[in-house]
């Protein structure tokens, strides 16, 4: 192989997409979700019949339009599942392991959100209660990162 490489030069045809970036719109309920998060200590869910869905998706499973309902972030949520990340995308070891969890506000709400949990790996478990740590209101941008992380409820 190395001999062949020395004798022949294989031309390369590089590709670099001219699309530099994507700028998405949040959607109808997405806009409410982030507006609420920015302005209040709450998010919104979609109410379809008696069932609440998070994150809100505008449309219900039966194709009707869902109602926007606020869900407070001040109450404890529980950990439905979690993972502990030890390496970054490039395989470098993280200084401190990072915990990502599926967090659900109440038993009878369908869905939840994924977010960081600030805890030691040995402290974390399914079913533990956590509370959102929000950025100060003046620093919020209407993004999911307006919630800095969730922390264990003592």
């Amino acid at each position: 192989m190395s001999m062949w490489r020395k004798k022949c030069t294989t031309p390369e045809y590089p590709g670099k997409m001219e699309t530099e970036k994507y700028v998405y719109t949040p959607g109808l309920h997405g806009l409410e979700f982030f507006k609420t998060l920015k302005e209040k200590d709450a998010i919104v869910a979609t109410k379809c019949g008696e069932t609440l869905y998070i994150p809100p998706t505008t449309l219900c499973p039966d194709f009707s339009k869902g109602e926007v309902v606020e869900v407070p972030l001040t109450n404890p949520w529980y950990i439905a599942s979690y993972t502990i990340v030890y390496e970054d995308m490039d395989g470098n070891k993280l200084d401190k392991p990072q915990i990502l969890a599926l967090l659900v506000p109440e038993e009878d709400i369908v869905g939840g959100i994924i977010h960081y949990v600030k805890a030691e790996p040995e402290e974390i478990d399914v079913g533990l209660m956590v509370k959102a740590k929000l950025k100060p209101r003046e620093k919020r941008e209407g993004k999911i990162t307006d919630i800095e992380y969730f922390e264990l409820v003592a």
Partner: protein
Amino acid sequence: MKPNIHVKDKVAIVGAGLTLFRRRMLETSRELAWEAAREALESANLELKDIDCIVIGSAPDAFDGVHLKGEYLADGSGAISKPMVRVYVGGGTGVMVPIAAWWHVASGLCRTVLAVAEEKMSPAHPHPQGVFAYIWDPVVERPLGPNLLWIFALEMRRYMHVCGASKEDIAIVSVKNKANALNHPCAQAAAKITVEDVLNSEVLVWPVHRLDVSPVSDGAAALILAREDIARKVTDTPIWVEGIGWTLDTTHWYNRELAYPRYVEYAARMAYKMAGIERPWKEIDIAEPYDPFDYKELHHIEGLMLAPRCQAWRLAREGYFDRTGELPTSPSGGLLGVGNPIAAAGVMKVAEIFWQLRYEAGERQVKKPVHYGVAQAWGDLMQVGTVVVLSN
């Protein structure tokens, strides 16, 4: 329908829905799909539970910037827990959607199909042209830095040369379609303009000026197709799918005569044969040929055999294709007037024929009586033709 193929069940379109076509819609892709799908269901007096199968059409994932776009659109298209397929043949996708929906029903596999097409071109920055750049051959074309407008300009110039058409002759189509769109409630680029306005608009890639081109759009469109017995139950005015056809040519687009879309003719012949149409120029009452550029409408009118080769521009000058003319084309306003969210634009054209054949097009309704209509889309690397023939 002539029995040149075995068709188990006759198929009708019984409902249609459309969102606004705009440059940057707040709605997500799946919300757009849902709005169009809901409107189509309501217009057919059906609910999602009445739908057996789903067909989704959307152009490259790279436009919306969401991979697995068919799957992403699934809940907005009503596809959760139902058999779903996504079809994609570039710009031809919009008419491929009802074609695929037709074979689902005609085969006996599904009684009803919700067919949804969606495109959101606005997320790609700085311009969705950057996505189009990657349709080229990476070895012999892309190193030259081609732009989609280039090949349209080359094809337009070739059509002008072979057929003796001038820029003015071609601009008539843009003037007609943008004016037709003034009566379309979803239109993005409706306008009352003159041939001079087209000629005086910014030159993008000569001979293509800005007003020769359809806009960048977000939008969705949907149709409901049903088996004959169900169609007759839900409506007194089912619109029958009489013929379908589609053909693909090679991506070596410069290896063929650019002045004539041979692949559109082949697709049209397939659809006409199935519909029992022998003289389309006499038997077709109304047409929605694909018009991303003004010359493309003339090109496709000829490919659909609605005018002799190189004669479409002469007939356009005489008003033959006007809404009040002998054979109205793009009475909706077409892509030039209503907008061009790629796959959704093709379904919009089929929906227009559906509304026209039901005499439900309101101010857009053509003056003549209509019995047979044809809708067509075109795309990929100037190589695919998709055709649907409908009747009332």
